[in-house]
């Protein structure tokens, strides 16, 4: 790299023209690179819509898969599985994430606060397949079978750092005066946290939760090692069967959670590897559903943040 002083020394008229050309060239190069980086985004979106759109119909959302060779069938099992796993992941990640964020936002410089933020950074960097291995060793191995529960815990570990960090940032944005006013009125610390800080930060916390769910809904690798897949998963049938044999609600919910399930990305991955064109077509349809779900959640969450921050600034 040339030193700046040398550039000045050399800058005759010729130099100056060269420099202007270099300037224009490099600046347009950055614009070109930006366009280049965004090509895959539009390519993927348009291609998935064009391919997947043809194979989406009502059956796709309401039917279980049929054996190969019989036309039709859908991915109801995977949709239900995704919902069950996501609910479990949310239950396991939101309460600890929000509570730890209260601590980290309140005591940012205490040793434990630093340790929590540090762990959050570390957690968000761990590859999802490694999280899957750990969930396998923690739950699948002792239980002896794959289950929705294990998948929910794996995804919860992935969601935890996202929820913790956004909540912490949002709690820090709440003005000190609000906290002090509440304490001055005689409210206890916990009362202040739950009825003043938490509602004030709620919007941010919800966006963090949305982004975390969007991330978890597209995850495949940990589910491969924890939920495995199940073509016959059908919540309606589990409930019906449970009611007929007079099982308690706990037994029914237990059966929902304690067996292998499929999820949309897992189904996509399996179908994409099969040689049957029908399966490949369904894989494209699954990709479309998944993409629309994930992208629209992302857009909603980000638009929400934009509106909120503009209102706070304005």
């Amino acid at each position, binding site marked *: 790299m040339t030193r*700046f002083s040398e550039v000045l020394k050399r800058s005759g008229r010729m130099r100056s023209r060269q420099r202007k050309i270099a300037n224009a060239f490099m600046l347009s190069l950055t614009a070109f690179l930006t366009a280049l980086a965004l090509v895959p*985004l539009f390519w993927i979106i348009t291609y998935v819509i064009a391919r997947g759109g043809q194979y989406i119909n009502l059956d796709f959302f309401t039917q279980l898969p049929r054996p190969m060779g019989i036309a039709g069938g859908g991915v109801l099992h995977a949709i239900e599985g995704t919902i069950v796993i996501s609910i479990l992941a949310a239950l396991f990640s939101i309460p600890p994430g929000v509570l*730890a964020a209260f601590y980290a936002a309140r005591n940012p410089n205490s040793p434990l606060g630093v*340790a929590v933020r540090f762990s959050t950074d570390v957690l968000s*960097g761990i590859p999802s397949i490694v999280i899957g291995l750990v969930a396998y060793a923690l739950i699948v191995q002792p239980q002896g079978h794959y289950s929705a529960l294990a998948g929910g815990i794996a995804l919860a570990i992935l969601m935890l750092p996202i929820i913790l960090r956004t909540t912490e940032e949002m709690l820090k944005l709440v003005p000190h005066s609000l906290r002090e006013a509440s304490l001055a009125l005689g409210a206890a610390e916990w009362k202040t946290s739950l009825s003043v800080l938490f509602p004030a930060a709620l919007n941010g916390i919800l966006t963090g939760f949305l982004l975390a769910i969007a991330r978890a809904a597209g*995850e495949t*690798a940990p589910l491969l090692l924890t939920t495995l897949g199940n073509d016959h998963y059908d919540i309606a049938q589990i409930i019906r069967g449970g009611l007929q044999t007079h099982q308690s609600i706990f037994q029914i919910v237990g059966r929902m959670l304690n067996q292998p399930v499929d999820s949309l990305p897992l189904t996509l991955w399996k179908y994409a590897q099969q040689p049957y064109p029908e399966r490949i077509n369904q894989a494209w349809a699954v*990709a479309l559903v998944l*993409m629309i779900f994930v*992208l629209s959640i992302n857009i909603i969450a980000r638009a929400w943040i934009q509106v909120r921050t503009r209102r706070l600034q304005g």
Partner: protein
Amino acid sequence: MQSTKAIPRSSYSPLRRAFKHGDRPWQGLIVLVSILVLLLVLGIGWKLWQGSAQARSALGWKFILPTLDANWNPALDQFQAWPFIYGTLITSLAAIVLAVPISLGVAVFLAELCPAWLRLPLNWMVELLAAIPSVVYGLWGIFVFLPRVVVPFGEALFSVLGHIPLLGILFTGPIPLSGSSRLAAAMILTIMIIPTITAVTRDVLLAIPNSQREAGLALGATRWETIWQVLLPYGLSGILGAAILGLGRALGETMAVTMVIGNSIESSPSLLKPGYTMASIIANEFSETVSGLHTQALIEIGLVLFAMTLILNLFARLLVWRAARRTPQEVRA
């Protein structure tokens, strides 16, 4: 109002005083949860360590050391992980080589040049690129990206670089007709890590004080010279951190890579040949292991992956953190 009668102290039970209208339990709860978060990280490391104990004692260091004739034969309990470690490293490094210049360009455009009305939509689009699920990248990769982009690009690389001594080893072709190769994995990874590197680099550039830009321009430098000779050196450690964060992401990426890399253990080091990565061997074999040692060996691969990403992330965070903390005073000195 009646004068309030002093409550005799004895009516406060010691227990109630200790709880102090609920603050102690609350404090205890959030401290407990915070400690749990901390223990979670330690627990992950410990579980991987413990889960691979037999494999570590049975296979020793030979498991992860580089070799030319690596042996991976689960039926005979022979395991050597070098082909997977090599595959992970070569695809991730190639992805970094491709992604850093592009991300740098995008970040400069977003932070320095882009008109205000375009900034928000462009930022969103870059973030959406990161939001697309990995399996969707994989599916699109197999059917669209590989035949249309990777195969022609791979052939061009083979004919241009394939015959150069030394460097040519990395580009011995020809690339398979389907396009499934380490190059395909590297190119998909490039697309997937551009958002990470771009976002961090953009933030590093935006954090540079305006006085730096003004000083450059006031000395007669063009905008590009200001960017190249003032801003980029100023943010260098942060940009390096961004690249390492991207590398960390590339190392652990599983699904898209598994779908396009071809999943075969090759002795050729070439980028144009199919390969295997650490994450993809776990994804492919873990649910069908043939022996306890097989499972353990896969968990040990997970442990190595965990250690690699942990070290990289710590290093990257340190760099980004230092770049963000650097104050104008320090620069003046």
